[in-house]
C-alpha cells in the first residue's frame, strides 16, 4: 500500500488521510501537509471536522487536571504584554499597564543602579534572586499593589497603587505556589506602604517565584484560613 494510491484525489483517499490526521497517528511531515490543507482546502477541512465529530466522544476519557496557577499569567504575558495587541480593548489594557510599568521601570532602574554599584563596594552576594517584584492587578478590579519581596530581610513590601477596601473589609495577602491551596501571608495594613514578614516556610516558595494574590475579606482576615472573598489583584513574582 503506497501513499500515492491511498492519498489520491478521490474522496476515499482524502477521507482516510483526514481520519489518520484526526486519530493522530501520522508522522510530523504528513501532519504538516494535512494542517496546510485544512487551511487552504475547504473540502478537506470539512472532512477533518467530520472525523473530529465522529471520534470526539472518545475524549471523554481524558481526566480533568488543574494546571498550575502560573500558566494563565504566562498566557496573558504572551498575548497582551506586546505591542502587537490590536483590539481597542486590548490596547486600553496595554496603556494602563504601560503607565503602571513606567512607574515600575523607575524602580527597576534604581535597582539596576544598585546592582551595578554593589560589586564595586562588596563582593557579589550569592543570592541571584534576592529581590523579586510583582505587579498585582486583576480584570474587573481597580485594586493594584506593587509587591517587592526582599529575601535578605524576609519581608514583602507592598506599595498601594489604587483601589480602596470597602468599610468593614480587609485586604488579605496570599501566596499560591503550584497547585497547592493559597497560604495566607496576613492582612495588609491600611496605608500607602506596608511590610509583611515572611515565614521561613514561605521564603523558599517565594524565592522560586510564587504567585501573590489579594482577596477581599471580612475585617481581621479570612475566618477559614482560605480566601472567602473575591481575588481583587494577583500577579507572579519576577526577579529584576
Amino acid at each position, binding site marked *: *500500500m503506497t501513499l500515492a494510491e*491511498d492519498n489520491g484525489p478521490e474522496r476515499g483517499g482524502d*477521507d*482516510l488521510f483526514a*481520519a*489518520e490526521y*484526526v*486519530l*493522530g*497517528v*501520522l*508522522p*510530523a511531515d504528513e*501532519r504538516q501537509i494535512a*494542517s496546510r490543507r485544512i*487551511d*487552504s*482546502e*475547504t473540502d478537506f*477541512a470539512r472532512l477533518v*471536522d*467530520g472525523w*473530529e*465529530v*465522529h*471520534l*470526539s*466522544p*472518545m*475524549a*471523554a*476519557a*481524558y*481526566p*480533568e*487536571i*488543574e*494546571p*498550575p496557577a*502560573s*500558566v*494563565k499569567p*504566562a*498566557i496573558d504575558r*504572551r*498575548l*497582551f504584554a506586546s505591542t502587537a495587541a*490590536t*483590539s481597542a*480593548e*486590548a490596547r486600553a*489594557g496595554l496603556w494602563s499597564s504601560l503607565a503602571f510599568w513606567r512607574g515600575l521601570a523607575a524602580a527597576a532602574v534604581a535597582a539596576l543602579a544598585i546592582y551595578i554599584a554593589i560589586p564595586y563596594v562588596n563582593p557579589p552576594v550569592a543570592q541571584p534572586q534576592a529581590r523579586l517584584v510583582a505587579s498585582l492587578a486583576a*480584570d*474587573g478590579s481597580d485594586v493594584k499593589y506593587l509587591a517587592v519581596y526582599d529575601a535578605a530581610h524576609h519581608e514583602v513590601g507592598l506599595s498601594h497603587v489604587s483601589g480602596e477596601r470597602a468599610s468593614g473589609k480587609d485586604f488579605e495577602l496570599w501566596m499560591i505556589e503550584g497547585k497547592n491551596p493559597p497560604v495566607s501571608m496576613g492582612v495588609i495594613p491600611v496605608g500607602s506602604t506596608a511590610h509583611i514578614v515572611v515565614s521561613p516556610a514561605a521564603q523558599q516558595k517565594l524565592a522560586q517565584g510564587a504567585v501573590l494574590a489579594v482577596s477581599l475579606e471580612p475585617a481581621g482576615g479570612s475566618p477559614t484560613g482560605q480566601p472567602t472573598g473575591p481575588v481583587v489583584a494577583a500577579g507572579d513574582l519576577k526577579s529584576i
Partner: protein
Amino acid sequence: MKSVKLDVHKAISAVANTSQYPNLPDMTPQDITKLIVRTSMKDRAAFDLLYRQTSAKLFGVCLRVLNDRGDAEEALQEVFVKIWTKADRFAVSDLSPISWLVAIARNHAIDRIRARRKPAADIDAALDVADPAPGPEAMVVAGDESERIHHCLDELEKDRAAAVRGAYLKGESYAELAERHGVPLNTMRTWLRRSLMKLRECLER
C-alpha cells in the same frame, strides 16, 4: 481563498446575552459557545472565564499526550494563545464547543510530541492513569454520536479497537504503535486504515 460558512445562530445567541456570565460551576455548552464567540471578539473577561472553565480538561489532554508536566504546561499556554487568535474559526465547525477546544489541544499536543519525541518509558509507566469511566461531563461532550462511535468500535476486533482508542487518547504514531504491537510499520498502517474504513462504513450506515 476559503469560503466561510458563518453559523448565524452561534453568533446571535452569543451576542444576545453578553452582560452577565452565569456563576461558575454549571456551564452549559451554550455558555461555553458564548465564551468562545466573545473571545473571538477579543473580550478578555470572556477569555479569562473560558480558561477557568476549560483549562483543567485541556491540561488533562496535554498531559496525557505529552506525559511531562513542564511540556504540558508549555503546550497549554500555546493552546490558549491559539484559542484567543483562532476563536472565530469555531463558527465554521460542527463540533460542540468543548470538543472543539479539546481538538485544538489534542492536535497541538500531538504536533508537539511529533516534533520532539523524548524517551519517556518510565514516565509513561508512572503517569499512565487508567481511563476513568466517562463522568457526567462526558455526557455534555457526547450525545447520540457517542453511542454510535462506541458501537462501531465494538464491531472491530478487540485489539484493533484498542489500537484506535490508544492512538486517539495518547496520540501515538504509526511507528510507536508498530513497535508496541511488534509488527512492521506498514502492517500497522494497513491495520489501522482498514479499521478506519470499517468505522466509516459503520458510522455512515
